């Protein structure tokens, strides 16, 4: 019933608007077009300036409503992000100035130079000086922005700082998997053809590579150490995903068949961020930023930024992926299947 009323009301509004419009057309024919034009011109001229003023108030009000209480206003949580925030502020000031200046001129001119019998438009086809100025000023400004931008771009995409922690993050529909190198600090080789979740090897790690034996696999949550740079090695198993780290201001695609990298240095622990944002549920969330299928919106990961002590304690409790795979194989053997050929138990144990 409500729907019908709604539709009826909408149709009624349409009808009224239409009748008014039609009537105004008859009136304008009766009055003479010149006079009618002058009248509608006045109304639209007034609306131009009204739109400008209300628009500017709207810009201010919108800022008031939405600026506070989000990831941007809390400031970046990584060293790299701080630089990006700074660049963004530079661009906000520059584009903001141009925005206000040009919009005010646009609607201001429209209002001021609306039709009048007394005025005659100025025949003014070109002016080389003016055109030179407004070609060169933007060109110079943009060159400066390019230089600043590229300086940082090369830094962000260059080699990760020495001593960075390495974490591999692999995306698949619709979750993230993390892999840490063990004591040797080297991630073992992978081969997608070895992928076999049933045999405890969902990432396709090549156990023949000795470096792979102490790797640790953790789903969804990534533990990193505050103030220590971390280098992500990004993989995808199926379609293109993207590791988005909005709180750290960085992102990089996960491309099947082509590992990508990204590094950042977190500066606040998750606990500190909870205080900073006043939100006890705060987490550093990993968002997927590249459409990857129907579960795209639910592909969430977590970055836990902790202190070195907390990190060590956590890592000590992790089992290596290889030992897990072995357990899987053993349980499969208990069910009567032939076990995969494995090395001695000694190799498997993780020292810490």
């Amino acid at each position, binding site marked *: 019933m409500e729907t019908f009323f709604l539709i009826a009301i909408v149709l009624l509004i349409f009808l009224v608007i239409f009748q008014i419009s039609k009537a105004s057309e008859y009136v304008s024919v009766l009055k003479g077009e010149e006079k009618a034009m002058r009248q509608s011109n006045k109304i639209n001229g007034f609306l131009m300036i009204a739109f400008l003023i209300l628009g500017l108030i709207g810009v201010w009000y919108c800022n008031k409503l939405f600026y506070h209480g989000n990831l941007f206003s809390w400031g970046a949580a990584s060293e790299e992000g701080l630089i990006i925030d700074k660049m*963004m502020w530079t661009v906000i000031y520059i584009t903001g100035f141009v925005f206000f200046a040009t919009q005010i001129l646009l609607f201001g001119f429209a209002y001021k130079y609306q039709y009048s019998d007394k005025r005659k438009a100025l025949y003014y086809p070109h002016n080389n000086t003016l055109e030179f100025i407004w070609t060169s000023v933007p060109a110079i400004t943009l060159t400066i922005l390019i230089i600043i931008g590229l300086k940082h771009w090369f830094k962000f995409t260059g080699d990760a700082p020495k001593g960075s922690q390495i974490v591999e993050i692999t995306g698949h529909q619709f979750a993230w998997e993390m892999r840490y190198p063990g004591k040797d600090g080297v991630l073992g080789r992978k081969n997608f053809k070895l992928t076999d979740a049933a045999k405890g090897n969902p990432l396709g790690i090549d156990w023949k590579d000795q470096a792979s034996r102490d790797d640790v696999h953790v789903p969804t949550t990534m533990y990193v150490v505050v103030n220590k740079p971390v280098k992500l090695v990004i993989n995808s198993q199926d379609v293109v995903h993207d590791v988005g780290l909005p709180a750290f201001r960085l992102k990089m695609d996960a491309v099947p068949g082509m590992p990508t990298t990204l590094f950042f240095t977190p500066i606040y622990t998750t606990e500190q961020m909870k205080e900073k944002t006043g939100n006890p549920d705060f987490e550093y969330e990993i968002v997927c930023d590249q459409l990857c299928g129907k579960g795209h919106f639910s592909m969430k990961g977590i970055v836990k930024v902790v202190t070195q002590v907390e990190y060590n304690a956590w890592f000590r409790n992790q089992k290596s992926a290889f030992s897990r795979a072995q357990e899987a194989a053993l349980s499969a053997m208990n069910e009567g299947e032939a076990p995969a050929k494995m090395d001695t138990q000694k190799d498997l144990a993780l020292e810490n």
Partner: protein
Amino acid sequence: MTNEEALQHQTQVAHGAAVAAHVAHHKQSFITKYIFSQDHKIISRQFLITGIIWAVIGGFFSVLFRMQLGFPDQTFPWLEDIFGKWAEGGRISQDLYYTLVTMHGTILVFFVLTAGLSGTFSNFLIPLQVGARDMASPFVNMLSYWFFFAASVVMFSSLFVSTGGSSVGWTFYPPLSALGDAAEGAKTGMDLWLISIFLFIVSQLLGGLNYVVTIINMRTKGMFMTRLPLTIWSFMFTAILGILTFPVLLSAVVLLMFDRHLGTSFFLSDIVIQGKILPNEGGSPILFQHLFWFLGHPEVYIVALPAMGITSEVVSTNSRKPIFGYMAMVGSFFAISTLSMIVWAHHMFVSGMNPFLGSVFTLFTLLIAVPSAIKVFNWLTTLWRGNIIFTPAMLFSIGFVSLFISGGLTGIWLGNAAIDMHIHDTYFNIAHFHLVMGVASMFGMFAGVYHWFPKMFGRFMNKTLGYIHFWITIVCAYLIFWPMHYEGIAGMPRRYYDYSNWESFKMFEGLNTFIGYVVIIVFATQFLFIFNFFYSIYKGRKMTESNKNPWKATTLEWTTPPLPGHGNWEGEIPEVHRWAYDYSKGDRDFIPQTEPIGEDEGEH
């Protein structure tokens, strides 16, 4: 009518043969006159009306997915009535959501703003404004429309297959678009989508070649290139861009089809999907992105340039002033077109491509802001000390400039690779491109329709409805897209079905609800325009012989009869003696292009 006949027809008319007898001689059936017509004016109307139908569908899809985002907890039983299993319980399913998002993008970018905008106005204005009887090849022109029609039919039917329409985004990145296992919408719906785009590209190439040849070869006597109205310049650059870049998209479509059905590995490598290990090795998804964006970026200028041309024309006419810096406008069209072809990879800064490449593309991307700035300043100066008449077309042109500024400036953020690392694929991006090429180009299209409607149909649209349409639309456009910048700088990703699970973006729930309401209002308002359009075709005030130049414009199309027949001019095609922008020169309000330059008068 073959070309030979068409030519003969032209010579006959040009030599002033008895027109009445001629018309009687060529009596056409309804089918050859209105359906398989070779008259550029009819073809243009076909493009326009098809475009309007698509715009309603594409717009409606955006209403549906904004309802999902705005009212995620509510159910709408009528949705189930329409979509059945795709909206069980009155809630849009995830698969349907992504199909709606994909189709909204595809329809608006390709079918409305490429075919509907450039197809309509290039067809309508090129022969009329350069002084030609018709396109260089009317038959190819007709084919262009019918390939578009075929593409439309295939695209529309793709929505009805049992696995649903394509749901992989209008950018259709593989492997998602290559593997049926990756999504329901990557199955049959995707095949039909690709076939449709294939047909669409053929249509664009046929049309584009015709536009360029017509502009270069068929200008009337005295119509030097430097005397062309800016609309024609914009259509020419648009067509050239299309001709150079659409074939590359075609190659991407064909290679993707091979990957889908012939077991090739152009874009596929190292894939495990649904537990299945695929044999493909050595392909590169990045290669596809290069091929796609090689068209994809010029495409936004294919969409924007005609709107800029129309705006230049309308702003100049209704300010009663010559367009400021004509040569700079032409030069900036050229600069934008050239640069637009070497900036494509700014869509790929974070795709994993070589960072050095990213730096080159940052450079060119930010440089493209220079010719864009020139255009804006020139429009502003054209308004300065004018004597402005606010026709609905003029309002939409001013609106275009406003939106183009707002959306263009944020391009400076996104084009800078280091900043893009944060705001790439967020709502910031959505706000940016909807303002600068989506809504702005829509405004250009509205301006064109309001301005040339009398020439198209010999009747006037209702002005008051036009004014109401404009003011509600521009207010709503800003209400929708301005606040999205805030979601964007907070890193809120695009193409999400639901945000309620995300601690980082929960705070924008109220905003999304608000946007949901505004979207419904602005969509409803467009029916004022559509009603006005169709009502005025039949019932609008008639344009008479004495009032056949209602906007007091200088260009050639207004020298034709109120409703020109095939061939446009009765008698000889007029000769052109001056540029198109002699407004308020000396004591004259305007001087038509056909008037010879006076003895003491200098050319602009």
